[in-house]
């Protein structure tokens, strides 16, 4: 790889300063499972790498009042091992867990997955479905924004120079609220989503949905929050009629491309199928969280 400078700051302020002051391109290093690949291929040529992993709070999961806070640079293995998070948001954990291989899971992080800006990122749909916010640090201080505002297009984010994601905040789930994430890939493992679907639902005691969010990945330039799919669920139980309307809403929201992994037609069809299946799992989990 070409020459690069490296720094591992120990305070958020130092990290912001290092990123903002860099004359040339400065890149944030979290797990490195996207950055190093792109540096080796020449797709990105940073002059400076700023390592997140020595910053306080960037690695780790904690409860804070009525929120769960996930450090941006927390690796997948730590996320999967966290029993509290797995109970609260099994959909987020299964989304993260699908990224790459066991080796990739040893390093890959949600902030990296998000800020890499792939439309097919697996951790992003369930994090958005959870209504998570991202806390961003930068030269103008901190801001907290909905996660869906970070990615603006393939490989592009709304982060300004000097900014990086510190952590993700999700509300602790309500009783009878849960989530699920499913993805379809051509292989069994180690592939990029053809479609990803996250469903987060809240039910009442009768099993009727009172709140929902449905998010599709890999079927548009960015993740899609499918309002009509949520409307198909809210006020209903998950009967065949609801599933049909959910399926149709998911399909209607797709704006995919045809590539080597799937055609437009196939992605649209699979989006409907995954919406049905992910909703069924989310409903079942939510009902069990009475």
């Amino acid at each position, binding site marked *: *790889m*070409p*020459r*690069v*400078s*490296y720094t*591992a700051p120990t305070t958020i302020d130092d990290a912001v300063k290092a990123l903002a002051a860099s004359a040339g391109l400065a890149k944030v*290093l979290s*797990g*490195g*499972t996207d950055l*190093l*690949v792109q*540096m*080796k*291929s020449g797709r990105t040529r940073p002059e400076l*790498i700023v*390592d997140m*992993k020595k910053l306080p709070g960037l690695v780790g999961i904690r409860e804070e009042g009525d929120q769960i806070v996930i450090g941006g640079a927390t*690796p997948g*293995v730590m996320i999967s091992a966290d029993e509290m998070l797995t109970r609260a948001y099994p959909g987020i954990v299964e989304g993260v867990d699908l990224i*790459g*291989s*066991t*080796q*990739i899971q*040893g*390093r890959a992080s949600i902030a990296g997955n998000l800020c890499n800006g792939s439309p097919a990122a697996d951790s992003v749909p369930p994090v958005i479905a959870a209504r998570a916010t991202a806390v961003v640090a930068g030269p103008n201080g901190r801001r907290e924004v909905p996660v869906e505002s970070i990615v603006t297009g393939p490989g592009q984010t709304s982060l300004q120079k000097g900014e990086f994601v510190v952590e993700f905040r999700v509300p602790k789930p309500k009783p009878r609220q849960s989530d699920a994430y499913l993805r379809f890939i051509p292989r*069994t*493992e*180690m592939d990029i989503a053809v479609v990803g679907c996250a469903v987060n639902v809240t039910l009442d005691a009768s099993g009727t949905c009172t709140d929902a969010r449905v998010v599709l990945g890999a079927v548009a330039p960015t993740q899609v929050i499918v309002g009509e799919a949520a409307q198909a669920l809210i006020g209903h139980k998950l009967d065949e009629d609801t599933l049909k309307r959910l399926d149709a809403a998911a399909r209607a929201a797709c704006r995919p491309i045809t590539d080597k992994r799937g055609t437009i037609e196939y992605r649209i069809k699979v989006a409907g199928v995954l919406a049905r299946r992910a909703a069924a799992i989310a409903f079942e989990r939510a009902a069990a969280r009475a």
Partner: protein
Amino acid sequence: MSKQHVSTVINGEPMEFLCEAQQTLLDCLRDELHLTGSKEGCGSGDCGACSVILDGKLVCSCLMLGVEAEGHTITTVEGIAEGDKLHPVQQKFLEHAALQCGFCTPGFIVAAKALLDENKNPTEEETRYWLAGNLCRCTGYDKIVRAVLDAAAVMRGENPPSPAT
């Protein structure tokens, strides 16, 4: 830029090396420390031939910078055997002929050891999914999986029958 000095513990021994920031951990293991057991198969984190264990977590050393190893503990394939005593995974790889060219083998040995450290009784499915990040072009994986399951049995104190010759 001047070289960076990195202090680590590798295979139980404190080790230091100098490197440039853009050298991967794999580069440093092979070129600076002459631990050439870890291999570069793809350089992009897909094949697992460079697998090492970092602070107990299985990782691809080609996707880490050498400087990121500062202060951490690493196990490479060179650290799997205890002196002359092979690890059960290594022994079973030999008994099952779970290698041909051998290039993927260090990565598989390290990955399998990491699996058995975490899960003493993996199913075949769990084993195959765990090893999905290790690619082999020669064997078709079957003997590798049998060797790993057999090694797990040995490590549980069971006495599995020898593979048919």
